[in-house]
């Protein structure tokens, strides 16, 4: 018995050591063309934010399958390694290391949560691993310091708040009172700070009658709705999302709050399929980008249709914005690899530095538009905002009277802080807002 145990232990030890040596070997060779392109993807697979994370994962699986059918990237197949963001940053930064050092991922697509992005980006600097911030929105990332290996392939908080604000100033210029009801966490606070800075600069004198930050994940908004009914604000802003927003909208419609006040909901798009016909019409809705299902003039209509149709066929639901953000990150990745491989010549494979250089200033196509990555790494994504409405093509609310805000117009210039820049805006900035899109 004693001997058996010893032998088993010894064999286990030997197996562990040889496994370790294998891993070490895997790390040593980096520059040669690999047999597969490994992509680490961090996303929410559990918890409240999985309403975004799971569709994004599905989109990545769908698109990787498509890419591999078409011969992969640079002739080699792509493979995704998914990581759940839900356990928190101490777990996530460990997982980031695992993806890079153990799985040998050549590129990381990081994070829905801004906290996760803030933790992963400095790690990308230290480990010199190209990291695409595929969904998080915090303006702090590139405004607080340079990150040579990090790129954000979509818009971020500032344009996503400023575009609906400009739409409101155009649509209902005479509003005098406003209330805010945001989730009580970083985005809820950040987005209100951005909105307030922009609103006070462009339309001074608006009275804020209520500032409410109900608990993240709250299921009952009756107190807040009562207060809003009593305060009768002209406009109610809510940057809430997911289950919180769905609940807020349902409880507010039941008590006819939508009939008294105009709602502005910059992240409504992801909740609209769930709400179906219960979403009230005539309120301002945003999508964290320009990728609406009923985009009147997408750049590549066939590609948009293919993405929507194949996603619907496979998962039996309409794609929401995280699907598009994932698709954008993957498009950027394809474009950057093509660029880097072309620069290297036939048979070459870019190293980490060459890959990140390929991303700087990169312009890539999305189904609806093109996105350029600025010199600081921030992507310039156009924003489309509209009024909720119904038509017979979709079983849920879609925008009408859409206005396309060019990204350069609503993004903070390189090197400036968002709140400082927003404070410099003048009331006549509204006159630069383009006319609604046709169709």
């Amino acid at each position, binding site marked *: 018995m004693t001997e058996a145990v010893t032998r088993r232990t010894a064999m286990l030890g030997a197996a562990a050591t040889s496994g370790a040596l294998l891993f070490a070997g895997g790390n040593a060779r980096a520059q040669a063309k690999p047999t597969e392109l490994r992509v680490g993807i961090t996303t929410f697979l559990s918890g409240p934010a999985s309403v975004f994370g799971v569709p994004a994962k599905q989109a990545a699986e769908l698109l990787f399958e498509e890419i591999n059918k078409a011969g992969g990237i640079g002739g080699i197949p792509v493979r995704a390694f998914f*990581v759940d963001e839900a356990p928190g940053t101490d777990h996530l930064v460990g997982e980031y290391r695992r993806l890079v050092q153990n799985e040998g991922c050549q590129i990381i697509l990081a994070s829905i949560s801004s906290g996760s992005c803030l933790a992963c980006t400095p790690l990308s600097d230290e480990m010199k691993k190209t990291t695409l911030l595929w969904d998080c929105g915090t303006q702090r990332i590139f405004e607080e310091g340079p990150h040579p290996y990090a790129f954000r392939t979509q818009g971020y908080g500032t344009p996503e708040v400023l575009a609906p604000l400009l739409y409101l100033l155009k649509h209902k210029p005479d509003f005098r009172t406003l209330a805010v009801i945001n989730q009580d966490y970083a985005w809820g606070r950040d987005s209100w700070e951005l909105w307030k800075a922009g609103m006070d600069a462009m339309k001074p004198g608006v009275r804020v009658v209520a500032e409410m930050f109900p608990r993240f994940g709250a299921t009952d908004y009756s107190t807040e709705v009562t207060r809003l009914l009593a305060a009768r604000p002209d406009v109610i802003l809510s940057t809430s999302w997911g289950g919180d927003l769905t609940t807020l909208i349902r409880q507010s419609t039941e008590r006819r709050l939508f009939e008294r006040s105009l709602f502005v909901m910059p992240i409504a798009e992801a909740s609209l399929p769930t709400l179906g016909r219960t979403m009230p019409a005539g309120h301002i809705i945003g999508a964290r980008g320009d990728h609406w299902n009923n985009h009147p003039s997408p750049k590549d209509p066939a590609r948009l249709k293919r993405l929507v149709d194949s996603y619907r066929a496979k998962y039996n639901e309409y794609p929401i914005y995280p699907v598009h953000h994932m698709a954008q990150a993957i498009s950027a990745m394809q474009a950057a690899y093509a660029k880097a491989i072309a620069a290297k010549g036939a048979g070459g494979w870019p190293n980490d530095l060459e890959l990140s250089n390929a991303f700087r200033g990169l312009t890539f196509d999305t189904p609806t538009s093109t996105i350029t990555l600025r010199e600081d790494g921030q992507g310039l994504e156009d924003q489309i905002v509209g009024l909720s409405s119904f038509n017979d093509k979709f079983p849920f609310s879609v925008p009408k009277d859409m206005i396309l805000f060019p990204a350069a117009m609503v993004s903070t210039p390189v090197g400036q802080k968002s709140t400082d820049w927003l404070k410099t805006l003048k009331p006549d900035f509204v006159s630069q807002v383009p006319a609604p899109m046709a169709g």
Partner: protein
Amino acid sequence: MKRETLLAIVGALALILCAWAIPWLKFVLTVALAKGIAVLGILLLLRAGQVSFGHAMFLAVGAYTVAFVAPSVPEVLLLLPLAALLATALGLVIGLFLVRYRDIFFGMLNLALSMVIYSLLEKMYAITHGTDGIRIAALTFAGVSLEREVQEWVMFGIALTLAIGFGLLVRAYLGSPMGRALAGIKTRETRLEFMGVSARLVLLFAYVLSALMGGVGGALVSMTTRHVTPQLAYWTSSGELVFIAILGGAGSALGPFLGATAFELVRVYAAAAVADAWQMILGGVLLLVILFAPGGVWGILSSKLKGRGA
């Protein structure tokens, strides 16, 4: 006792070997050791039959101390004692009235206080950046700023040294009259009082010591992950610590480290194998431990070792 020492040495060597052979595990193991130190504190309270469902607050205090002070004093050797000191002070203040309560009240009051700290960290947005958390500036060790690779080894070394140090301290403490008295609180408190020992004082001492270790654990976690969020003080984090204590077993000062290593490794490998169902695996492991090995990992190992000797 000799076997325990042997096991500790073998364990430490295995950790070093693992960290050397598999670079990315070094990070995971450092976090495991840091959490192990914090769980040692839970173990002390478990000896007295008390479960703290809010112990993560001391971790958070240690971690946020590092986050707030690091920009002005980025010295690991100063930050660690400072974090420990603040956590100890908080432990003393809270402990003074918490030790009047027992069982569910003790657990719930700890939970309530930790949630107060969580809310403060989350709501004082202008100071703490809320749920996005604070990035910890680059740290120096004895005045030298280090490369990432070296820094990781240094943190691992500090965590291992402190783990061994606190392990020995806890072992000595549990063997001392003060430590023995903890078991008295669990069985029958009045007996202690008859002997002229103040049960409150005994528990307060254990509580403050556990707060100290929580602070050190938190400081180590924050120095390793280099980013702190209020999540550290959330009740699920406290639950995690209790989970680790149960997984490791309360029989020995080695238990918390066995538990923490097992917990982090199971979580990491479960997350790697099935990214969207790792919670189920973790829960399954805990259920198996509760059902079949109530003494935890330590219980399994010590019975194996005893079986060998017999």
